[in-house]
Each structure stands twice: as C-alpha cells, then as structure tokens.
C-alpha cells in the first residue's frame, strides 16, 4: 500500500471527510496538523504553492482538496 499523508486542520470539514473516507476503507494515513505544526504548514505551502487544506500525498502524488475519485484511483479502491 502506498504511503498516505494528509495535511489538515482540525476544523476543516473536507479534511474530516477525507479521514472518515480513509477509516471506512481501512487506509492507514499520517496526519500533519498545519495549525499546530509550523514545519508541516511550511512544507505544505512549499510543496503545493497554495495554502488551502486538505492536501493529500499518496506515494509521490499530491492532491489538493478532497478529490475522492483521484484518491480511489491512486489507492486502487
């Protein structure tokens, strides 16, 4: 299984939807809270050139927003 990292904020509903989706599909993920973690915040902005959350990294692919269709495709779900 590819590694999954989500850059999120606690209050963001798209982030919560994404995490619910991962849990429902038994996908293990690492969460980086960009509110609490300045390093993760800078990393996300540097990686995507933007500051909207969530940003989801699956393997080497970076997805901005909760794009379920792309996520499903990348994870083979």
């Amino acid at each position, binding site marked *: 299984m590819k590694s999954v990292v989500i850059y999120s904020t606690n209050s963001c509903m798209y982030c919560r939807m994404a995490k619910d989706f991962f849990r429902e599909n038994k996908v293990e993920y690492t969460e980086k809270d960009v509110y609490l973690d300045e390093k993760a915040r800078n990393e996300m902005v540097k990686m995507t050139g933007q*500051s909207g*959350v969530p940003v989801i990294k699956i393997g080497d692919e970076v997805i901005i927003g909760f794009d379920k269709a792309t996520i499903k495709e990348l994870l083979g779900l």
Partner: protein
Amino acid sequence: MDNIYDTIIVGFGPAGFAAALYAGRFAMNTLVVGKEFGGYAAKAGTIHNYPGVKNADGYELSKTMKEQAEEFGAKFYDGEVLSIEKKDELFLVSTKDKKSFTAKTIILATGSERRKMGLPRESELENRGIHYCVTCDGPIYVGKDIAVVGGGNAGVSAALLASEYAKKVYLIVKGDSLTAEPISTEKIKIMRDKIEILYKTEIKEFLGADSLSGVVLNKDFNGSNKLKIDGLFVEIGSLPVNKLAKDIGVFLDDHGYARTDFSMKTNIAGAYVAGDLCNAFGSFKQNITAAASGAVAANSAYYYLRSLNK
C-alpha cells in the same frame, strides 16, 4: 425498466437530508444524490441555533441527519447530478459518472454557492491568500494579519472564528453598520483590539505576485489605501445553484431562486424545491429553514403520489 424511485432528492445539505428523513418515514422509495456532503451546515463550525442540539458541530450534525434518513430507508448516492429530464411523467437523473436514475417525483435541494467578489485575479489567488471557508483554512493563518469581507452573519461569524487564530482581523464592510445577529455584533464590539471594522469600505484590487500580500481599498485607512494582509476570507453571500431547476423548466425569480409556494411545489408537476435554492423564507436562510422546507417538500411529494394512485 430499472427501479423507479418514488422520489429522488438532489442535494446533501440539511434540506436534502430532512426531505430524505420524511420521505423515508412516508415509506417512499427514496434516493438522495449529491456531491457536497453537508452543504454549508457541515462547514459552519459550531452551530448554536439548531434547536435540540446545543453547540452542534456542523459536520457531526450533518452526519447524524444522513444516518437518521438512512435508518428510515433512504438510499444515498455520492455523485454530481449533471442533468435532469422529465419524460413521460418521470424524472431521469444523470450523474457525472454516467449513472442514471428514474423517479416519479424530484426534490431539488441543490443549495447555493459562495458569491465571489468579481475582481481581477480572484481565481488566480484562490487558496493563495484568498479563501471562502474560514472553518477550513482559517487555522493556516495563525499569528498572521487577515481580512474578512462581509458585514452579515457569515462575515461576522467568520471574523470571530478567524480571531481565534489570526493576530489581527480587519472586517471590511461595504455599509455603515453590521447586519449580523446582535449576539454576534455585540461579541465583535468587545473584541475591538483584535478585530477592527472598516465601514463603508470596499476592496478594489488584490496585491501580490504569487500569493496575496494585500488589497487596495476605495479609501485611505491609517494614511494609505493599501492594506497589507496575509489572507482574505470572502463572506459576501451566496447565489442559488439553479442549473438543474432550469433544466426541467422550473420558474425562477429575478434573483435566480426557484419559485415555489408554501407547499414547496413548483410549476412542474412532481418537482419540488427546498433549502437555499428557493426563497420560501425570504432572505432568511438557516439550517432550520432549510430542514423545514425539505420536510414540507417531502410531505408534498408524498401527497402528490397518493393523488396519482387514486
């Protein structure tokens, strides 16, 4: 022919969920199709004015509404409806992922979308300093200076929420007063050290190359018409998502809202509307009014089907 639903509800917000709950309890064969789970309710953060649920988490409240409708038999399909056609007294619903569904009645609860400012470079700078969801992206601006545009309920709530993260919040208001609920305007007044309200002020231009660095105002503030900010949150109202209503010939008013009466029926037999798509409660658009109109729409669809079966 494949399964014909008694009703298809389009929309995953409180209007659609309430319609699904009632339709389910009426034992109608019900399908709900939508793409944006929860609508504005899910993005609202804490909801203080939904009766029966104190300090409701908008996302959790939306999940509960959906689960409640599922318990009474409503089925849900996660997909974007691209078109609806009425043919031989049936409604044919087609989705982006090429699925199609058929129903005897339709309840459109497609909601509304955020009104944008309409200034040059707004799209280019979206998520590069310009945002439309404080609940989502507000925490990114911890310790920064930001602005919120809009003096209504959404703008004032956004400013209050953003003040939990930002160092300084400028609330940019076109008029000479706030139009939000008094409970919010009173809160904002006592936070004047952190939230500064700029009345009779409009943004004329966005500054910054790759990301927003400031805005040009229509008048001077602290000796300059340039206001340096790291982020801007736009909360200036919404526009009805009426494409599907138009597709089937539902009459719209001058502002694009679906015309309806107290039963939520439209000029098209078997087609009902609910929530922010219509003006059933005038400009007063709340979770409770959306849910109420969804319940009424389901009730009307149910009695319409009964009248057909006589």
